[in-house]
């Protein structure tokens, strides 16, 4: 089934640990994004990538890093997790040449940092 998959679905992590959230899309979209959503709030952009090999910072990039080695995968890494990074993380993609504002979202990863 075409779309975006994220893994894991949920995770409880001890503070200070390193964690990578995985995101894979099979729509051959050139652009991909990572957002976080805190309880009762809208989404905030963490990092984005307009095409494989390039990345950019969003609104809240501190404490996170990304890489885009190929078109399909866009992992998000927390080098040393802190409790304030407890959130739901959504990965998204879009075809920026056709409809960049029409983003397709994954099911999310619920991360709890203790």
């Amino acid at each position, binding site marked *: 089934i075409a779309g975006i998959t994220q893994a894991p679905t949920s995770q409880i992590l001890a503070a200070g640990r390193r964690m990578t959230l995985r995101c894979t899309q099979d729509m051959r979209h050139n652009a991909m994004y990572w957002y976080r959503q805190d309880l009762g709030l809208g989404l905030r*952009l963490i990092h*984005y990538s307009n095409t494989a090999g390039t990345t950019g910072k969003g609104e809240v990039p501190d404490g996170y890093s990304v890489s885009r080695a190929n078109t399909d995968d866009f992992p998000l890494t927390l080098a040393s997790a802190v409790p304030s990074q407890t959130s739901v993380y959504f990965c998204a993609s879009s075809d920026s040449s056709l409809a*960049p*504002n029409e983003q397709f979202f994954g099911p999310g990863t619920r991360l709890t940092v203790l």
Partner: protein
Amino acid sequence: LAKTTQPISMDSYEGQEVNITCSHNNIATNDYITWYQQFPSQGPRFIIQGYKTKVTNEVASLFIPADRKSSTLSLPRVSLSDTAVYYCLVSKKTVAQKLVFGQGTRLTINP
């Protein structure tokens, strides 16, 4: 980036037409208006996008007056499954990384 303002919450009933208005007084000439829908425990889903006048698809209609300082998302004959949070966003069509999701409007449809 143009700031958007929309009601925090709305209530309606099955079968009714629901209109959610979004204010974006500082919208720029090359900004587009996009609406997303989010169900609990799911990622947002694109609903509709427009620049001016009226846009309609199988899900909703988007009305944009001539001054473009506001827009109205219209959901015809809502059902319980339309209960969700609806986000209004304003951005350049070619700069997707600048999408800013506010708090949205929590729409509750009652039987």
